């Protein structure tokens, strides 16, 4: 994937660039907002990672500018500011995702990957398939190995998030935001408790666990086998 990164702190930029390159992405880094706007006009990228506070034109203004041009490239905003109002502003200006600094790199990588593989606007898969699990989004039905699995609505949404990202880590905070609309991380591990229910329903009668826990980061479904 071609990733554009607007980040003025050289160390953070190098750290992100190295990590994303290791994961097979092609990364272009820019530290100045106005230069970034010129680069973005010249080339197309799959995902833009914009820091909110950079010299020249800030990340939010870059986001506004490219959305005003009618471009729908997925944008992940990074911020060191406080969360609540800032997050709302960012999403209102058309950011697709939001990450507060400091963050674990795995969190950033997971979000970039999830943004990059979103289907183009308007396209909609009626059926998702990962390994032996099949999810029908229209009939809200899940089958594993041909056998029907009865899920609660929230468990269904939880599974859907994982199935939309086969082979990729989906982090706990991503799930909290997308499944429960929790913009914060409660002390109680809500995701883990729901996940264990989902797992026991999916795994009943099967040897192999459908969902893998990536310790300290999140969850993943493997496409193989």
């Amino acid at each position, binding site marked *: 994937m071609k990733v554009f990164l607007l980040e003025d702190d050289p160390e953070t930029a190098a750290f992100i660039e190295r990590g994303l390159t290791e994961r097979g992405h092609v990364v272009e880094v820019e530290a100045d907002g106005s230069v970034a706007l010129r680069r973005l006009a010249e080339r197309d990228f799959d995902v833009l990672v914009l820091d909110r506070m950079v010299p020249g034109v800030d990340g939010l203004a870059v986001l506004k500018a490219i959305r005003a041009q009618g471009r729908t490239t997925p944008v992940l905003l990074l911020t060191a500011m*406080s969360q*609540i109002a800032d997050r709302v502003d960012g999403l209102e200006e058309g950011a697709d995702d939001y990450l507060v600094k*400091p963050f674990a790199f795995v969190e950033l990588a997971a979000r970039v990957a999830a943004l990059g593989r979103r289907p183009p606007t308007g396209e909609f898969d009626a059926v998702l398939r990962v390994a032996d699990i099949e999810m029908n989004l229209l009939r809200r039905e899940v089958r594993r190995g041909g056998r029907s699995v009865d899920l609660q609505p929230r468990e269904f949404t939880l599974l859907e998030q994982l199935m939309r990202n086969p082979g990729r880590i989906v982090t706990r905070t991503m799930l909290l935001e997308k499944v429960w*609309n929790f*913009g*914060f991380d*409660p002390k*109680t591990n809500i995701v883990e408790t729901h996940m264990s229910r989902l797992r026991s329903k999916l795994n009943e009668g099967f040897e192999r666990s459908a969902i893998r826990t990536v310790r300290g980061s999140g969850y993943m479904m493997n496409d193989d086998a």
Partner: protein
Amino acid sequence: MVAGISCVLTLAVGVVTFSMVHHEIERQLDHRIELETQSLLATYERAGFDVLVRAVTDRDRRPARGTLGYLAGRSEAGSRMGYIVLDASGRRRAGDFQAETPPPGWSEFIRFRRPDGSSGVAQAMNAPLPGGGRLVVAADRADLLDIDRALLRVFLISAGLVAAVGVLATFGFGGVVQRRLNAIHGAAEGIMAGDMRRRMPVDGSGGEFDQLATVLNRMLDRIEALMSNLRQVSGDIAHDIRTPLTRLRARLEDIEAETTDGVRKARVEGALSEVDDLQGLLSGLLALAEIEGRSVRDRFVALDLVALVHELAEAYGPALEKAGMALSLDLEPATVRGDRPLLLQALSNLMDNSLFHAGAGARIRILTRATGGSVRLVFGDDGPGVPPEDRNRIFKRFVRLDPSRTTAGHGLGLATVAAIVSAHGGDIAVTPSARGLQFEINLVAGD
């Protein structure tokens, strides 16, 4: 200022009174001349020119009892004015008014000589006699001038008095004001110099300055309390940050010394979890600061509180079950004005609090009631509860009732709940209940 205004007002009243009195006396003089002219003309009509000459001569011969003007104010009998009677050829036949014959009609400011030899100013009417000749009747303006002078004197004296009193009052009052302002100024300087304990002087008179000083002192009390709170909080933050930093440093030193890859990886993970802990503390504090900053109010909308509680119950369902806890809901329809993420966080923090402290097998209850313009939410558990003396303390940041501080968290959970409720214009209190810990929250109803 006040003195100046009083002076101007006094002078204005003086000018108005003066001109009214002046005109009235002048009018009376004219009236007197008219009456006398009519009376003499009537004599002339009735008895002829010679009788008129005699009548005027008689009047002139009456003993003078003062100036012409003085007599002019008297009744017809005994009054003496100045006269001139001219025959048809223009010769003076009677009257000792010592002046040039004024022109026909009304004349003012005619110079003449009084019988005692002094000169004066008179007004006069020169009327024609039907058979030829003229009759002049004049009155002295000396009295009018005397009255004018007297009035002027009275008003100048009173204006002077008013001005003097005004100036004295202004300087006296100004001096008092200046003294009070100096005192306040001195206190303010002292406070700016760092003496936060200093207060504005209050003399107990209950006057405007005392009220102002009392209000300023209340403000200073509040600022001092906030500052001491700030000092306390920064101290707490420093402590809460230093602890994980110390552990982090120790772990990093261990990692540096460690050569076995497996152990090294485990230690790195431990160090990272310390970083996460610090990060959690900082974002908790930032969120608290943001909520207390009140800008969150801009995003308030009408929210279905019951739906929010159901979402919460759904999210926590499995966790409660795992902890062997039960949740009972007693919800009546209620809409509040607020911010969904914040209220969800508040409820979630209460839930976390009960999950971590109420103990296995506990029961959590949530009740909602809407009454008038407010909504009441009661959140309770039947765990061990908190001692009455700690009931208010638990809303303070960094307060953890567990003395060993071994449980997870930074003591920001309930402080955040209180801040969120307060940002919503509501209130929260720990209310007595038969068992466990019970919170009562009052919020503003939405619409």
